[in-house]
């Protein structure tokens, strides 16, 4: 069953209150939206400010394994994937 590693940066980190967490899922075929929905349930402050349902609010963005940025929650994740949550305006 897939384990997804979530890393928080910036505001998502301050709202979650930690820098990373491992989430285990019972079923294969977990999507980014599934992870975000789970995080929203687990971290109320994160849900308030960064998440709406199973998507990130405007101003936040996800990245898989430091490689691909995405706003679309349909993207499938695989066992061991790392999902990064960060502020969309990553520059100075």
């Amino acid at each position, binding site marked *: 069953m897939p384990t997804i590693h979530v*890393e928080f*940066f*910036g*505001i998502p*980190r*301050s709202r979650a209150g930690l*820098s990373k967490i491992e989430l285990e899922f019972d079923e294969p075929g977990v999507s980014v939206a599934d992870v975000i929905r789970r995080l929203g349930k687990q971290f109320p402050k994160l849900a308030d*400010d960064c998440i709406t349902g199973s998507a990130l*609010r*405007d*101003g936040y*963005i996800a*990245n898989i394994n*430091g490689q*691909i*940025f*995405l*706003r*679309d929650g349909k993207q499938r994740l695989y066992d061991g994937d790392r999902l*990064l949550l*960060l*502020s*969309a*305006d*990553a*520059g*100075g």
Partner: protein
Amino acid sequence: MTTYGYHGRYLRVDLTGARGEYVEIPSDELRGHLGGSGLGTRLLLDSGAAQADPLSPAATIAFVFSPLVGSPLTTSAKFAVVSKSPLTERINDSLASSHFAIAGKKCGCDAILISGQADELSILVIDDGQVCLEPAGDLHQTACSLAEKQLKARFGNDFHFAVIGSAGENLVRYATISHDGRHAGRGGSGAVLGSKNIKAIAVRGSQRTAWADPDGLVKYAKGLSEKSFGPATAKYRELGTASNLLVFNRLSALPTKNFQQGSFVGAETLSPESMLQAREKTRASCAACTIGCEHLYALKPSAAGGFAQEKSSVRLEYENLFALGPLCGIADADVVLSASQRCDELGLDTISTGGTIAFAMECAERGFMDEPWLQFGDGDALLRAIELIAARDGFGDALAEGSRRLADRVGQDTIDFAPQVKGLEIPGYEPRALQTMALGFAVGTRGADHNRSGAYEADFTDKVDRRNVTTDAVKFAIESEDKAAIMDSLILCKFLRGVFEDFYAEAATMLRLVTGWAVSPDELRDTARRIVSAKRQFNIRAGWTPDEDTLPQRFLGTALPDDPRAVLSATRLDELVAEYNRQRGWAGDDG
């Protein structure tokens, strides 16, 4: 003729004769270039500044306000300093904030253009438009904040001051101009003022401009302030730009040890999250700002390596953190904070300071120069080098010239890894990992610049593959440059950019409420292109050639060691630049 929001004139100051006179600015020139960076470039083009030696009496330096200065619009208390850069010999427009902008505009002008040279170190006093020079011998080599403090005591609290530190007096090519702890930082405008024997400019005034629709403006400004408290600015309010550090590190986009790596083992120690655990932090903001992005960290009394500390806390931004930390291999937060503070007090641009020192460290480590004390990770060496640079003492004299001139002096192909474009040191964005930004750096009229081009924004989205961009990315670089041209000319803080749903429409609304002009979003898009073209025109007159629009060899064709996928070939960069010129409608060699 007076236009709402403007005085319709600039103040021309000739230091050689200690004279000032108002000169009318035609209304169409104001509407066509707005203010700040755009208007400053236009006025400098007309003054012949592009052809002058930037450190000669013939050089002109412009302090430029904007139609929004003095209005209730949040973050609008800003001014631009525009001149030919002594570092790049190209256009240089740097911005700073706060009461100097408001008081300067109240002197009854939209800009102050200064040329000539005072006989001795002086203060240029502009009192409601009346110009005189006062001696400044007592402020010789005085630190920026102390100079401002002493000037306040001498002239009174209703004057506001732009000052240079010892770096400006000693003509360090990347010296800043400081006001209230903020700096017009890049490109060496402090040296231009220093070359004119001006330690400080004191402004006081009583002349206000009227607004076309005061009620509408106040209502709009209230709504904008409310939006500025929202999620789009949360990062800046709560954490500051320093929170970029861990993100960039994670993405191998954090320039480390003179761009030899994209991640740094000491990043976690330097992150604002870690720093907070060991020291107090306070927040501050520029005048007329509701965001308040400035995060000031307490300095430990012992941390300055034996150098005097003028203040007990220091502003920490991503750029000074990266440049004085990972770029020089420094993982000690106290050293980075002290180095930042010393740069602020001496009036040194932190990016160019860190970039030049990091370059010298690599040259020394690889045996290209005999300065064995300069080693990556050595905090004492960093602090010592900063003092030497500001004083132009010993090897500091060579470092004060910037990395490009230093490479020319050292030879042996070290120019290939001098971290600069057009002579301006590269800010904290690894070009191989952020390739839309790489294009922005290459074509930037000011040189490697993250303020006049925010092309990195596209790299942090799903719109491009940041480590393998194609010509599809060019439009994002152009959009970003155009948007910055408007923001820097209106002038509004970039940290507000996320609150606008339709930037050009909202910018047109603000301009209409202030000036009464029926400006459309499309007119503003044309204005943006006009401003970018004016900067290019300035550079052409200053001697620009197409081969300047590139990156150092280090970044071309070789993968970033800690991210093998991050490769930018020279051919690809050439294609991007050619496509950029095509979309701009430029021939590539004559603008």
